[in-house]
């Protein structure tokens, strides 16, 4: 029997992820030629700085959506971690301790979600909408409408400065490392197989010895911890710890993941597609901002892209099946 049904170049190029990458390239070219100042040297720098939180959170989100679950509480964890980090700084603690405690708190937030979903058997959509409100409430409750500012410049510079003379911020290295870790985790380890198998058939995964509950718990803990890390970054990047930091960021994260080709039903997705999805949203955002479009309109565009990315594959899939087999429609 042949190992592969199609030659390697077809397997590499004719994928859902390649489509996103193609759209990203086109969007970049269009933006560079149409939008005033898009091809300036600062674009890349700001693009990376701006998309960093979305990119970070999108990595574990890819795995969670890969299992057919979702975590909508991520932006609230960003807020809670931002506040925690700010308060710890106010209390006179150092960067390392603040970072560590915030990330641990994020992991605990994720563990609460994960325990309710995995061991409580509750739908993640309901659980994390609940904790979205809960964690945001805690964040705002802790700090009220005030903000902690005045972080040492050495801290805030670390979040924004560039690598030598290049346009790339230092954090690019960290982002690349995390992308690599998640790509290996999803695509080259038994754990990644568990994730996608759970998304494809939870029952069959269980019969193959996959500990579904433990896997889900781990994913939510990861999501919480990485969201908290993004929260610390967010705080230093804007030099301000506030309870309402990153409100609504989950929309961008979910949109990026789905644009990147991850199936909302689980079982399908790749990290390189998601990275392209994140960058696509980043490019749209910065192009529109350069055109002085308001945040509200940008959200409308991202929301529309989200809907399209969910609907398009269904329509395309439906058309393909219909063309191959006009008889389909009644199931089987």
């Amino acid at each position: 029997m042949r190992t592969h049904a199609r030659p390697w170049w077809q397997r590499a190029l004719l994928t859902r992820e390649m489509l996103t990458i193609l759209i990203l390239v086109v969007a970049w070219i269009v933006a560079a030629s149409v939008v005033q100042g898009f091809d300036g040297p600062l674009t890349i720098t700001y693009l990376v700085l701006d998309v960093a939180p979305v990119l970070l959170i999108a990595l574990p989100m890819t795995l969670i959506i890969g299992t057919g679950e979702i975590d909508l509480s991520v932006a609230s964890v960003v807020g809670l971690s931002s506040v925690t980090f700010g308060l710890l700084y106010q209390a006179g603690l150092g960067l390392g301790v603040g970072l560590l405690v915030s990330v641990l708190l994020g992991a605990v937030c994720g563990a609460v979600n994960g325990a309710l979903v995995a061991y409580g058997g509750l739908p993640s959509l309901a659980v994390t909408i609940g904790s979205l409100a809960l964690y945001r409430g805690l964040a705002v409750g802790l700090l009220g409408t005030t903000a902690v500012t005045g972080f040492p410049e050495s801290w805030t510079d670390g979040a924004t400065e560039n690598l030598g003379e290049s346009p790339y911020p230092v954090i690019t290295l960290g982002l690349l490392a995390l992308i690599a870790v998640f790509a290996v985790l999803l695509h080259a380890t038994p754990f990644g197989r568990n994730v996608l198998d759970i998304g494809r058939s939870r029952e069959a995964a269980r019969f193959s010895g996959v500990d579904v509950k433990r896997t889900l718990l781990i994913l939510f803990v990861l999501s919480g911890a990485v969201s908290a890390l993004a929260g610390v970054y967010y705080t230093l990047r804007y030099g301000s710890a506030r309870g309402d930091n990153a409100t609504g960021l989950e929309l961008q994260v979910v949109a990026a993941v789905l644009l990147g080709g991850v199936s909302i039903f689980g079982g399908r997705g790749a990290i390189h597609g998601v990275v392209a999805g994140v960058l696509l949203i980043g490019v749209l955002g910065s192009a529109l901002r350069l055109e002085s479009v308001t945040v509200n309109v940008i959200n409308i565009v991202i929301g529309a892209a989200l809907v399209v990315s969910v609907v398009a594959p269904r329509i395309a899939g439906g058309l393909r099946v219909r063309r191959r087999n006009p008889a389909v429609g009644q199931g089987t």
Partner: protein
Amino acid sequence: MPNAAPTLRLEGVAKSFGPVAALRSGTLVVQPGSIHALVGENGAGKSTLVKIVGGVHRRDAGTVELDGEPVDFAGPAEAKTAGVAVIHQEPASFPDLTVTENIFLGREPLGSLRRIDRRAMRDGARKLFRDLGVDLDPDRPAEGLSIADQQIVEIAKAISLDARLLIMDEPTAALSAVEVRRLFGVARGLRDAGRAVVFISHRLDEVADLCDTVTVMRDGEHVSTDAVADVTSDELVRRMVGRAVSELYPKVPSTVGEVVLRVEGLESTGTFHDVSFDVRAGEIVGLAGLVGAGRSEIARAVFGVDHYSAGRVVVGGRTLRPGDPAAAIAAGVALVPEDRRLQGLVTESSVSRNVSSVVLRRRRGPRDEGGVRGEGREGPARRRLARLGILLPDAEARLARDWSGRLSVKAGALDAPATTMSGGNQQKVVLAKWLATDPKVLMVDEPTRGIDVGTKAEVHRLLSTLAAEGLAVLMISSELPEVLGMADRVLVVREGRIVSELTRAEATPEAVMRAATPGASAEQASGGAA
């Protein structure tokens, strides 16, 4: 009869899926008042042919006629309207609907004010189940039905259509002798009423028993059509496989060693009670019983995917943690479950991913510390599929290729999704996946469901050889000859209890059926007990 138009006439029907020619030249002529068998190896194109007649697939070429009228169905609904009822190989019910609702879906009887007449529906379902001789609650949801019960629901649905042509694609694959006999009664009734019936099965004794005409298919083509009385089973096998299959149940003698699996007082309220038994190294123990007796449930509890309320499972001297399949796997337990599509395979995944799925994620357990058996230990399972936690795609492909070869899996490619394989080939992949783990205890639930005669003999030979090397096998099969041919010992399960234990010598079909059937007196039931 010969001058009347046949109920169904197919000629030169072809169907391809991309590069895969599933059906090259399907030819089938079915007369009214006839039960026509369709036989052939796994992947011969039988189900594809059925799906074309049933309106699921559209043919690429050829003609299809019903009562002399050319037809070309655009969907299953059209086929149904035209009087074609199909029992598909893989039952697909709506899990959220009740059994009754599934049966009458889309054609619910209406009462006054055009409201659905639930009473009439339920009575209809009850009557169908009575005719089929099964005890199934018409009001229970379809979710969680066993494969056999799903099959029954499909059969009931198809029969209630009262069609002029009834096609049954391996309806008996999960049924035990009692249900099969009832089904045959119903089929004969239809035949006598002048309907045409097409019957697909890999059990040639059923073909001889039920059918009057038999068509053999091979590699998507028509091979022959004869009166059943004119061909021997051996001849049919030769035409299907292209060679003679020597013996169906070659039992290799083995020396029985120490107890490997011990089940003590296992209890699950409402499902099974006080189940205790041992399986020794080198021994094949059969679990016989009627559909719904609780055999699959026992195996699932032992494996840890289901919970039990009391009792314990001991493997190689260690008590397994209840409800933890990973622990069971680490201890060397394997379960080939009854439902390949929901439990056995991740159907969306490729052949090779499915074959490797347990081997690559198996937790290190006592199994890995030292070799137990000879040949098997150096077999493919010893190969590492990951280094430092990173998967090795080449090793994975090699493992999949090895096992696909050993079980003659036929698929488009190793990376083709399992959904594109024929039913029997999917079953072979489930077997491959578990045999590849080189288990110490192998529990198989309907291991050869839908597998053709040639490969079935190969599976039996493999199981027998592995047992001779020291594997402990627990075998559940509704196909009595399979159990009796393979097993050293037979445990009969009735209504959730082990009611009888028979040695190989004592285990005649009569003794097993007597013990398995409720209503038989206690004296009779225990008559054959050891």
